[in-house]
Every structure is written in C-alpha cells, then in structure tokens.
C-alpha cells in the first residue's frame, strides 16, 4: 500500500448501522432540510441572476464564524448577522444603482475574506473549529445549531411559499410587478435575508467554501430540464435532497468529508441534466420553435404543445393525440437535421 494515501474502504452498511444513533438521525434530518432550502432559494437566486451575491454572502458568513470562534460566542447567530449585513448592503447599493453590482460584490467579498483572516490570526491558539467551518461536517452539528437549523428551515420554506407568486413575477418583470401593486422593494430585501439565512444555517454542514454550490447547482440542474416553474422548484428540491442524503450516505460509507461528497454528487447530477437537457437540443435549431427548420414556414398546429418535449422544434406528432409523454414521439426520419428533405409535410395533431 502506498503510505501517502489513505486507504479507501467501502462500507455500505455503515450508514444503516449508525442510523440508530441520534447523531446520524440528526445528520439525516439536517441533510434533508438543507437540500430543500438551498434548492428553493437557489432557484430564485439563479433566476434573478444573483449567483455571485451568494458567493459574497458565504464569505461574509465565514468571517462571522471566525469572529464567533475568536470571541467564544455561538457561531450561528454571528454568522447570520454578518451575512445579513453583507446581503442588505449589497442589495441597497444595487437598488440605488450606485455602481454595477459586480463591483460592490467584489469589494464586499474580499473585505470579508480579509476580516476572516484577521480574526483567525488574532486567535491565541489555532482553533480546530476553523477548518470545520471552512469544510463543514454534517456529522458534528451541535444541538443548538441543529435546533436553529430546524427553526430557520421551516421559516424559510413557509416564507418562500407565501411570497412565491410575487417573487416569480418580480423576477420576470420588476416594473410590471410594481404596477400590479406588488411591494417589490420590501420583497427584495426579504429575499436577501432569506438567502443569508439559508447560507448561514447550511454553513456548518457543507462548509463555507462549498455552501454556495448547494445554492446554485441543484437549481441549475433542474433549470436544464423544464420550462415549468413549479416543476423547476420540485426538481431542484429533489436534486438537492437526493444529493445531500446521497452524499451523506456515501461520505459515511467511504469515510469521506461530507461537504465535498455532497457537492461532487450534485455536480454529477448537473452534468447529466446538462447533457440530456431538451433546452440545449432546441437551441441549435431554427430561431423560432414554431418555425419548420426546413421550409421556414410557421407551424401553428403541427408542433408539439408540451414545453418540455425534446422535439418541439422538429415537425412531429405523438402516437396518442392527447398524450404528450416523451416516449411517444414519432419523428419523420427524413426531417432530422443533417438530411435535407426534398418534400415534407407538417403533421397536424
């Protein structure tokens, strides 16, 4: 055996064996909750184009954690304070359009990183809590952190479902949302606070460096697969939970760090979604989905009405007229890209 590498052993039953102990039960509950809240919040973060805001919040949260360790306070509340402060200040600068948001995010991001390093260097002895915040460990969540995680997770889920419709409208078209009487400003700040809370409560489990991946990647994977908003939320949540729980299982079975196992798993899911995405398959075809790629004529009746149909650009019909399940797609082979048909017809439904 190579002495420089740890031996990797696979122990498939470890997870089930430990599940009778409270620490593993807690880890499982934490994994499920974190998977859900990160995916829900992440979906809106992605749609609102605020991906790097999440990164800045994660780093300010790390600075908060460093300060808490230095002063011997409860980390979660200090973390939350720091991340709320940074997200609100970014949101304020953004609202007043004082400068491009990438500039302010860059400034705040590096400032909090500097603060974090400062706090760590002030510690009389190097605390082992520092790497545990940086890299996270879902198996050693303190009871206090666990209770706060449960409380904030339910709070986040409830608030998101209360303001879901309005947030969706704002994300699509802020000005029209204002004209409809939606309190856009208030909801923007509420949302920023929700993002901060999500990152703060997930920090201990996933780690400051990787928590951001749990926000972006499940949502990004789901985004590849559907045009329907509710389905997007559902899929993102499913991917989130699948990767946190699956990652927890694998990290116990292989004795690997939980944060990186979870993130590796969700990235893998993202890759698969990206490859099988019907959206990208549409993208290289004609500029209008309703246009026949060969004759350029607009197909009103002949093309599929299912927005998630992988073939909706290509003239085709479904075996059963009302049935838009994917497996039933029938395509005229002559009309596939790469072969120019001499004549073709548009099939009606």
């Amino acid at each position, binding site marked *: 055996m190579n002495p420089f590498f740890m031996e990797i052993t696979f122990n498939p039953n470890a997870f089930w064996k430990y599940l009778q102990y409270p620490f593993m039960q807690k880890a499982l509950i934490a994994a499920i909750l974190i998977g859900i809240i990160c995916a829900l919040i992440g979906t809106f973060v992605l749609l609102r184009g605020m991906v790097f805001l999440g990164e800045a919040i994660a780093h300010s949260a790390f600075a908060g954690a460093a300060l808490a360790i230095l002063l011997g306070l409860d980390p979660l509340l200090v973390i939350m304070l720091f991340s709320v402060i940074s997200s609100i200040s970014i949101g304020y600068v953004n609202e007043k359009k004082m400068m491009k948001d990438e500039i302010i995010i860059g400034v705040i991001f590096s400032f909090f990183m500097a603060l974090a390093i400062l706090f760590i260097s002030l510690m009389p002895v190097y605390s082992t809590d520092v790497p545990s915040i940086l890299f996270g460990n879902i198996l050693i969540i303190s009871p206090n952190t666990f209770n706060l995680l449960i409380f904030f997770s339910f709070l986040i889920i409830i608030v998101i479902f209360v303001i879901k*419709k309005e947030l969706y409208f704002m994300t699509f078209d802020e000005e029209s*949302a204002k004209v409809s009487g939606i309190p856009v400003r208030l909801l923007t700040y509420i949302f920023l606070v929700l993002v901060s809370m999500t990152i703060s409560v997930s920090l201990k489990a996933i780690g400051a460096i990787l928590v951001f991946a749990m926000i972006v990647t499940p949502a990004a994977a789901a985004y590849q697969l559907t045009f329907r908003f509710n389905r997007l939320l559902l899929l993102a949540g499913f991917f989130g939970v699948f990767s946190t729980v699956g990652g927890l299982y694998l990290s116990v079975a292989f004795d690997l760090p939980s944060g990186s196992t979870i993130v590796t798993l969700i990235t893998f899911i993202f890759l698969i979604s990206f490859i099988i995405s019907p959206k990208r398959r549409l993208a290289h075809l004609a500029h209008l989905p*309703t246009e026949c790629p060969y004759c350029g004529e607009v197909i009103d009746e002949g093309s599929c009405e299912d927005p998630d149909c992988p073939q909706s650009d290509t003239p085709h019909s479904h075996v059963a007229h009302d049935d838009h399940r994917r497996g039933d797609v029938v395509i005229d082979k002559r009309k596939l890209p790469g072969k120019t048909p001499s004549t073709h017809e548009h099939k009606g439904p």
Partner: protein
Amino acid sequence: MTTKTEVDTFSTRRSLTPLICINNAVVAYQNAVALANINLDVYEGEILGICGPNGSGKSTLLKAILGLVPLSHGTIRFYDKDQQELTCVEYRQDNNLGYVPQVHNIDRNFPALVEDVVAMGRYAQIGFLKRVKKSDPYIENALRLVGMWKFRKRPIGHLSGGQQQKVMIARSLANDPKIMLLDEPTAALDFRIERAIMDLIHQLHQNQNLTIILVTHRMSFLREYTTRVVCLDKSIIWKGEPSDPKLQTIINQLFFQ
C-alpha cells in the same frame, strides 16, 4: 383598417372628464432632466398618442404616470368615477392599470409558459396568498383576444418578438385595466404584425371602453389610430388633433433637424 371618417367619429367620443392630471411634472435622473414642466390632462376614453425622438422622455413620462419613477417637482393625480382625487397608488387599488413596457429581453430559457406570463396579470386582482386558477376566464379571454391561445403552452422565451409582444398585451389585458399604457408596442415588429397589433389596440379601445396612452414614432399610426397627439422633447412641444396639418411640420422639425 381605420378610415378618415372613423377617426373623426371616435375623436368626438372623447369625454371631457380628465382621468389623469399632470401638473408641472419634472423628472430628473441623477443630474440630467428627462422631463421638464409637463402639463397634460388625459381624458377618459381617448387614445392619446405620444411621439418624440429617441431620448425625448416618452418612456419616462409613462413611468412617471405609473409611479415607477419619482417626480422631482409637480404632481400627477388620478380621478376615479366619483371625481375623487387620488395618487397612482391609491387609484390602482380599485382600478387596474395595464402597462406594456418598451423592451422585454426575455431569457430564452426562462421557466415560464405563455399562460404563466398572462397569469401574472391576474396577481393584482386575486391578491396575496391565493393561486391563479388554471381555468381563469380572464386569461383565456386575453389570450384569445390577441390570438395567442394556441400558444399558451409554449415557453415564453421561444416565441418571436411579435408573439412576445402580443403576450405582454394579453398580460396587461388579463388585469382588466381601465387605462392602458403602451410603450412602442410595435417597435421592431414586421409590417404585418405591426398593423395587427395596432388594429387590436383599436378594437380593444372600441369594445372595452379603455383609455389608452400609446407611445409610437409612426406618423401613420398617430393619424389613423389616435384621438389626440402630444409631441414631446423633454417638454411638450405640441398638443393637438392627429388630423391637424401642423402635426407633420412639428414632426419634421423634431425628427429632421
């Protein structure tokens, strides 16, 4: 298509009760003044055309009316059916405003179907914490009016510019508006769709007793479809009937100097 005589009949339909009164309105962005000293009344049932060169403040005027940009000076007041004086926010509690913005750069992959976008128009009516019903008759009506019913299951980002424009009009219609504000609804559309949308607006005005404020560059549209025209270049240069021969001279001055 509208003929000259029709224009005359519907310009006389204009009632004399003002719906919106704009008094000495000034809008400034940072340091630049975008609108200076605007005095304008909008009457119930009219189609008010607004024209002016690029950067003349047309969009800003619509946004000021909608309360989207703050006034540095002056007032904009709405009047409801009891002639009560209201601000924009107060007015839209009982009366709906339809707004079709100038540009929509919709992400191709945005997770919204045509029907979802039109459903957003219902949010103001159904209120907080309630869902829009799938079978909401306003959504179906609005989509049928603009001829986009059969596209209701398509992703919004996959439609052409003209089709998206029609969906945006449907969205503002789903709100059952009293006043509609359209910012260059036919910009960047081909001739056929341009006409179709203008005819649609005309038809809506006739059938639903709407008051419409329409920003457009096109002289022919001002003549054929509006009941009154305002020429704008930071301040109001000219106000009058679209049939007035002076309109052409004003436009020539504004655009070709």
